[in-house]
């Protein structure tokens, strides 16, 4: 029983990370109609941006987080302006392939600058809290609390602000949004800012939970997409349900199968859910 609870804790932590990545994937799909394959590597970029702030400026990780989010948002906007925007009038398939190319570019750039070795933000071991027989690390609390705060902030942005409503309107009916006076390019800009910033948060949390490595985000791409599809792609709220489901399912699976098969669990969950509910949990775009 304690084992299961322990895995549940790990699952919620992983789920929080996946959620932050999946929201971006879902938003970008909803607004721009293409699967952003460089999103995992955007997470990596964010994680390393925080490393710069921690290592060079001596900041604690929580203070480095907003800087990393800003840096990744800037990188995302720059990539959009230079690579994706000129291609936007072609087909979604071309954008998808170009984002695959960007994924390779980002990963190689990270490796070129910081090398292929494993890194950590702060060396040393921190003793986790012990609640009954379940161990909960300080970092785990930071990750889950951070994800909750960011998700609430995003919720308020989407529901209360004019730009947030324009984003929802554009994901709902892009042409009608334009007819209503929404400037598409402005909404696209905000989509990248939010997608990039949340990817950076996911990357920093992931590195906090494991370690930094140039492929750390790339390996998360499959479960992140699984979470986005599970929740109904194009629906940021679905990404939360999808992220937690995939995270918990992956960790719980290690009770019965070898941990190396964790990514396969994400696949299995998508297959099952798409058979039962082809448009995802919250009924996204088919």
């Amino acid at each position, binding site marked *: 029983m304690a084992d299961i609870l322990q895995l549940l804790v790990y699952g919620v932590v992983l789920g929080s990370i996946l959620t932050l990545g999946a929201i971006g994937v879902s938003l970008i799909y909803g607004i721009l109609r293409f699967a952003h394959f460089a999103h995992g590597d955007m997470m990596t970029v964010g994680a390393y941006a925080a490393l710069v702030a921690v290592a060079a400026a001596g900041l604690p990780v929580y203070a480095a987080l907003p800087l990393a989010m800003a840096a990744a948002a800037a990188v995302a906007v720059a990539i959009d302006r230079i690579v994706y925007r000129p291609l936007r009038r072609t087909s979604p398939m071309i954008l998808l392939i170009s984002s695959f190319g960007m994924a390779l570019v980002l990963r190689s750039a990270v490796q070129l600058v910081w090398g292929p070795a494993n890194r950590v933000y702060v060396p040393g071991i921190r003793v986790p809290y012990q609640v009954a027989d379940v161990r909960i690390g300080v970092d785990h609390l930071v990750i889950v609390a951070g994800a909750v705060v960011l998700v609430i902030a995003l919720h308020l942005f989407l529901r209360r602000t004019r730009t947030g409503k324009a984003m929802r*309107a554009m994901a709902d009916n892009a042409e*009608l949004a334009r*007819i*209503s*006076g929404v400037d598409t390019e402005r909404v696209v800009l905000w989509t990248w800012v939010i997608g990039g910033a949340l990817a950076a948060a996911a990357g920093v949390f992931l590195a906090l939970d494991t370690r930094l490595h140039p492929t750390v985000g790339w390996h998360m791409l499959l479960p992140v997409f699984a979470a986005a599809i599970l929740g109904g792609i194009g629906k940021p709220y679905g990404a939360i349900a999808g992220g937690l489901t995939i995270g918990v399912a992956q960790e719980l699976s290690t009770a019965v199968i070898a941990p190396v098969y964790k990514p396969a669990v994400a696949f299995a969950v998508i297959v099952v859910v798409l058979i039962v509910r082809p448009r995802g949990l919250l009924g996204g775009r088919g």
Partner: protein
Amino acid sequence: MTALRVEDVHGGYGGTDILNGVSLAVDPGEVVVVIGPNGAGKSTLMRAIFGLIGVHRGRITVDGRNIAGLRPDQVSGLGLGYVPQDDNTFAGMTVGENLEMGAFLRPEHTARRMAAVFDLFPRLAERSHQRVGTMSGGERQMVALGRALMTEPKLLLLDEPTAGLAPDLAAETFERIRAVNSQGVGILMVEQNARQALAIADRGVVMVMGRDRHTDTGPALLADPEVASLFLGG
């Protein structure tokens, strides 16, 4: 008061033109109805005016200013409203949010305009927190019209506002359109329900193969035997 002029407009999607030199005019406060067979380019004309498709030749002017080539959000900013035929609401958002999006460019007028729309469609006031996707076709059409009225447009483009509505709802919709027009809003409307539409029109335009073929007053078109046999079902 806004005057719209469409002069010899050619345009379409990609390579082939659907509009082949169409011209028409809507004077301030006028109701102009466009009728014609399927594929004549009626909806395409609306989309061209609103900057949703390319115009390769000709001019579209609003009060003398050429608007061909402007983006839809810029056309909206000039005081034009547009209700497309399909997908004309934000289905995943509430009635209130749909109307709010209508006033996107003039958020400071949201409350006042929403009151005016609720005046015209009292049923929407009761349902302001309902998601539009869960409403009936007639109610969705009210939301669509309400959204377009939120900007306080001087000219309204309506693409088949009564398509798919039961006859009593269609009659009610024409009545609402008349009420909107009586406040000085010019109307350019595409309609399959040609008889009823021409009855409230100052002028009618018959469009065929991407061009305007006849333009006359509503009653004159209704009385024209050729028009009657071709487009009014005998």
